[in-house]
């Protein structure tokens, strides 16, 4: 079930309902054209947009106005794109981020 607000009391009803396809982590989804990527993913039930680079804990929408960078994803190969500010286009390839290796810290844990 989609929880998208289609008739907002202040903003009014959505007139254009053109659904476009995009992929998130190699899975195909559909969302409304030009809605924010974060909204499209949320409407598809996806709340975890990435995992913290160091600890690996899940991250999703936080401020949703573009200043916290918690929703950053890789769009068409470009990293660090804010999902909350990016309008959805046909055929977008979106990938989330994950935990990064910490070789220096791992090495130190054993050798110090």
């Amino acid at each position, binding site marked *: 079930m989609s929880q998208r607000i289609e008739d907002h009391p202040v903003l009014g009803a959505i007139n254009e309902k053109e659904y476009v396809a995009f992929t998130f982590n190699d899975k195909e989804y559909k969302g409304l054209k030009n809605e924010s990527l974060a909204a499209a993913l949320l409407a598809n039930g996806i709340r975890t947009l990435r995992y*913290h680079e*160091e*600890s690996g*804990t899940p*991250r999703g929408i*936080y*401020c949703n106005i573009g*200043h*916290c*960078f*918690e929703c*950053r994803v890789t769009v068409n190969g470009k990293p*660090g794109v804010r999902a909350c500010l990016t309008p959805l286009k046909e055929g977008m390839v979106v990938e989330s981020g994950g935990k990064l290796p910490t070789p220096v810290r791992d090495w130190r844990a054993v050798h110090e």
Partner: protein
Amino acid sequence: MTEKDVVICRCEEVTYKELIETASKYNCSARELKLRTRASMGYCGGRTCRSLVDKIAAEIESGQRNQISLKYQPPVRPVHFGDLGRVEE
């Protein structure tokens, strides 16, 4: 999850507990608190938690009102290096 486990700085994953413990242990300024815990030093550039880190440091530092708040550093808005240097492809 208790109140103390709330993550204040989400970029560097610093909890409220870590911040108040560090601030009371070292009785330090906002800048020192930031450098010790890495709160406000992450990807977003402290735009989300700067005022919270300021407030924690100001409240804990033995009641003297001589705290200097954390500074704002350019670029105040995040820009891609590519947009700054403009490499034509």
